[in-house]
């Protein structure tokens, strides 16, 4: 199996992270924003794997599992909250969240 240099994996992670960030920054739909955050988290997971690979340790992969689990937990709670918002207002537009300010 041809080995992929760790740097490549890291670069890919960076690209993924940037993509996710872009999504977070430009999307207005809450669900998409949430998905973008997931992409960022997974990019980080990938970076961990790449790093673990570089140091020839399993730690990176362990961290990836952690990230996956916690991201799932986060998303489940987030979806519940977002659902209630949708239930209340009928929209998922993030810009509609703004009654608290000053």
């Amino acid at each position, binding site marked *: 199996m041809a080995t992929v*240099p760790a*740097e*490549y994996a*890291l*670069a890919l992670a*960076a*690209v993924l992270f*940037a993509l996710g*960030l*872009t999504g*977070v*920054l430009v999307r*207005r739909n809450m669900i998409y924003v949430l998905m973008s955050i997931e992409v960022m988290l997974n990019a980080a997971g990938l970076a961990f794997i790449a790093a673990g690979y570089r140091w020839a340790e399993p730690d990176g992969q362990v961290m990836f599992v952690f990230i996956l689990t916690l991201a799932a937990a986060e998303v489940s709670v987030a979806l519940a909250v977002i659902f209630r918002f949708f239930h209340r207002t009928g929209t998922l537009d*993030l*810009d509609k*969240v*703004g*009654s*608290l*300010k*000053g």
Partner: protein
Amino acid sequence: MKEFLWLIPALPFAGFLALLLAGRSMPERLSALVGTGAVGLSAIAVLLIGIDFIGSPPPGGFHAQGLWSWVELGWFRADAALRLDALSLTMAAVVTFTAFLILVYSAEFMAGDEGYSRFFAYMDLFVAFMLVLVLADNFLFLYLGWEGVGLCSFLLIGFRYKESHTGYAARKAFIMTRAGDTAFLIGIILLAASFGTLDIQTVMEVGEGAASGQQGAIAALAALSILAGALGKSAQAPLQTWLPDAMAGPTPVSALIHAATMVAAGVYLIARTHALFELAPAVMALIAALGAATLLISGLSALVQSDIKRALAYSTMGQVGFMFLALGAGYWQAAIFHFMTHAFFKALLFLSAGAVITALGGEHDMKRMGGLRKRLPLAFWSFLIGAASLSALPLVTAGYYSKDLILKGALAGSGAFLWGAGITGAFVTALYAFRMVFLVFFGKAGADAARRTGMGIAAPLVLLSALALFSGFIGVPSFLGAVAPPPDTAAQVDTTLAGVLSALVPVLGAAAAYVVFFKRRAWVEGLPEKGFVAGLHAFLRSGWGFDRLYERLFVRPYLLAARAGREDFMDAPYAGAAKAAELLSRLLAKTQSGQVRRMRWMTIGALLALRARSYDAHGRSPSSGVAAWASARLGGPSRVVLPFWRSRSILRSSFPFWTEEIAAADGSLKPILNGCPA
């Protein structure tokens, strides 16, 4: 007897305390008794002590009595101490006797006034302070009396406090004299700092011992500041304008304070410190010149006044001007002599004027008086005697002897020019004195005179008349000469002609007054109402426009500054800072729009800013002053080396420049991709 010296000021002060504490509940008669009695007792004490003093002169010609240690702090020491010598004895005698007579007069004059006991309380307090002034042994104690009489003058001018103009006059008097007094205080401090003591006699001795160089300059400076104090108190140019306004007080007050005693305190002060002045001939010349100037200014102003009390006030300024002339010439005995005679005849003039005013129901305007000779014979005769003595009609009046002495001294000590001013002043004095006599007592009858005078008013008038005529024969100059002989200039100048002139001029002045104001009165009344003459009249009448000048020069700018400062411009920076904080707060609050999208952007933006900053701090381009400063402060932590990840170049080329990540965030992946090896 001399050990009871302290009683002299203490008795009037006790009278004041008694009236202060219980005066409100006393009947008028009792108030008058307490007030007058205290001063009377004090006068008796002066008499007894004086007899003792003259009978058995103490060694050195003075008797000192320490009362208590006032301030003692390191090298600085000022005691409350009294000193009796010929000068202070003369002064004390004149003060107590005049005051006693005036108080007796007041007991009737003030009857029915709602502040009756307050009046006597203030008068007693005044006498007490005046005696402290006269008897004080050191400058600080003297200053206590000095300011005390100023205070009483303020209180008594504003005695009828319900009228607002009296308050203004009182305030004006206090403030103007205070300006002089402050200079005096600086002089006192100068003396204390230079000579290490405030004991008057010691200062004089030290001063005499060091006539030249540094000490001489200090003496001159001190003399100058003492002079400033004296000018204020004695209403001499340029601090004279408060005196005419001070006539707002009750007439006995004008008589006692603003004619007989307090106003002459400046003369006493200079006489007391004459040793200091002798070290500074220039200051002496200045005194003489100012005296002569005041004499002429006030004489011409007195000539055109219509208010009888204002005319007398200007005359007081003039007579004190005579005294200053004598002081400037070095003849301080003559000055004190004139002070005494002036005290008597001016008190007499004021009291008789008071009698006239009361008789006319409060009328002050001489133009509305006239022909009162018959109706008020007592007032007429006493006023006439007073005016004669003021004019210094030769031989028969006391004023002649003192004024003659002054004029001779002026010729001898200050030269012909100032003597000329003096003799002119004497002429003008006689002119306005008899103008008053003719306006008030001769000619057509003006307003009706109503009230008869009682014994309380008559007795002091008679006694003062006698004093105004005969006190010239008291040998005050020689008595005072025992303290310090007059300067020897007297022998060098022939004063015979001057003597003849000083006897003639008053008579000429009186005669001129007879012609102008009685015989040819129409001529004066026919003067044009407009044009130069009227302007001159108004100018003289307003006291040469000094009031207006000071108003423009000092009062208005000061008030303007005070009003402008009401809101305290120094608060502006703080108010501005508060405003700025508020503005900033509102501005920042705008960033808290509550919009999640904006929050994300701002958070990321902040992150990028921080990264840019963190790279600057590597020293490549310390763009921030704060960062550079902080790094200098810290002494710089161990310099961070940047060991790039060995042999792998891709991350090195893509990650160190975080701006590229922004590009990535913006969606442009080029830089990173370009950096990848194929």
